[in-house]
């Protein structure tokens, strides 16, 4: 033993360890090539994408140069004479987000029960219903806004309806997943005590999924505030109209003021919804 360092002892046993764990030290070739092959494929698509979307050094350089000028023009942020117009549009934005989220959540509740496997145990119905919700969800809020403008005209009401419809489908899917994951025992208890199907839902299922629903609705309120800031680009109310207009007219000081307004509002609503979630369900549960 004397004269041999710890390292030499370890190295002497290395061969034996490699033999015993062959799968770790020399995996089959196909397995070793899988990682690099995936990486090479992803990289090839990326390179093609960069080429296709026009990433050339000169274009990037010119663009960044122009962007630098724009940022210079942006300071100091200044609303000009439109402060009250902008604040009113901001109020509209928050109103759109709040009403859209609430109406969406209320409409989603019955849809979610119909989409839950354990409430309606018919797989054909389940499948069509879920795909229906997916279809509504697959259409972006801006497109829904364009459709609703055809129905109720330009203005924030169309924005509210657009967010409500889109959220109805999103919540419908999320709530139904929560219902399916709910504990069965309270339901069985209510049934055993002689409750009908509505009793089961009211006293067996709802208390269980309520915290999950509240947490998701509050999370979406914040996310919808962001959507509501851009919905005005197509004419459905809120601050987006002014954002698009001032950018097109190169009024950069107004643009930066509007962006700061949006930033502060969304951050405030983020904090508010986190605190409300904490107050209502008592724990910081991340929406899944």
């Amino acid at each position, binding site marked *: 033993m004397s004269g041999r360092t710890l390292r030499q002892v370890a190295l002497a046993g290395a061969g034996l360890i490699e033999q015993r764990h062959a799968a770790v030290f020399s995996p089959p070739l196909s397995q070793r090539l899988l990682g690099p092959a995936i990486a090479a494929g992803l990289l090839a698509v990326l390179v093609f*994408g960069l080429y296709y979307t026009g*990433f050339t050094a000169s274009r990037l350089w010119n*663009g960044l140069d122009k*962007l630098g000028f724009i940022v210079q023009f942006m300071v100091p942020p200044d609303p000009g004479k439109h402060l009250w117009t902008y604040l009113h549009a901001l109020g509209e934005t928050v109103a759109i987000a709040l009403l859209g989220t609430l109406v969406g959540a209320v409409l989603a509740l019955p849809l979610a029960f119909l989409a839950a496997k354990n409430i309606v145990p018919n797989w054909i119905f389940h499948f069509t219903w879920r795909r229906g919700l997916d279809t509504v969800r*697959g259409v972006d809020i801006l497109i829904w806004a364009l459709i609703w403008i055809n129905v109720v005209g330009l203005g924030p009401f169309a924005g*509210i309806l657009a967010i409500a419809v889109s959220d109805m489908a999103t919540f419908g899917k999320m709530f139904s997943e929560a219902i399916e994951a709910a504990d069965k025992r309270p339901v069985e208890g209510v049934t055993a005590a002689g409750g009908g199907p509505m009793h089961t839902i009211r006293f067996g299922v709802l208390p269980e999924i309520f915290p999950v629903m509240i947490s998701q609705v509050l999370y979406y309120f914040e996310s919808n505030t962001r*959507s509501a*800031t851009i919905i005005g680009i197509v004419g459905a109310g809120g601050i987006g109209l002014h954002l698009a207009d001032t950018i097109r007219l*190169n009024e950069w000081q107004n643009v930066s003021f509007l962006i700061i307004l949006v930033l502060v509002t969304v951050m405030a609503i983020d904090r508010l919804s986190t605190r409300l979630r904490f107050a209502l369900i008592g724990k910081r549960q991340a929406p899944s």
Partner: protein
Amino acid sequence: MSRLLAVTADHAAIARLEASYRAHQAQRRARSVLFFAALVVAVLLSAWMGEVDLVRFGTNFHKLPNYLASIMPQLRLGSLGADLAEWYWGFGRWFRLLMETILIAYVGTVLGFIGAIMLCFSASANLVRQRWVIAVSRRLLEIQRTVPEIVYALIFVIAFGLGPLPGVLALAIHTTGALGKLFAEVNENIDLRPVEGAYAAGGSWIQTMRYAVLPQVASNYASYALLRFEINVRGASVLGFVGAGGIGQELLTTIRQFYYADISAILLMIIVTVMLVDIGTERLRHYLLALETRP
């Protein structure tokens, strides 16, 4: 006698318990009533601000089914092939635009992923000691994700010109903010024992990150990136509304010009694409998350 005393004592205790229960319930009820009152006030205020007009909604609601019916294509059983061909007369062009949309989403997601990896470590409270570094990184990520990508796209279209390039950049910035926050949260939840082990075995900082941190977070990173890719495909489908590439421009034109059958044709293509991406990424995510839980 003593039993009687005990019973009265019990009565008193029960009465006290009941009183405190009632008080507690009353307090809870008061809080609920207050909360709902606030909610009702907020809803009424929002309805007033949002120009909610239920009469107009009622009288005009029939326009929605009418509109949806009018964008439906004319498909007759007798001439199904010809009708389909007429409905999808622009298939080649739309398909190319759809591929462009997916490519914008992909490049934007990858660039945003790289940006998020560069920023997420300095935003993790357990990996950095300097508080100001954490605060600065976090604010930066917050600004990147709070401004909607369409607003970035509007500005970038002016700076970089029309086309997919401003769309990619807008998605990349928004994705950096969104993923950076999630990655930082993943970093903060890692097990620090492997880190200590790698450090104790003489590993450098880079080796420690590579062999102790990365194996713990890689599948989560990939899973979040896939989720973001799906969201970005959705987002890229409307980037064209402001001239930032993809199928959005075409869709906006057909809606504004009332090319009814074209609207449903393009919408159907977008919906199917989003659904396929949704299903595909979900499969991959489940596979990745299963890899992580393997011992």
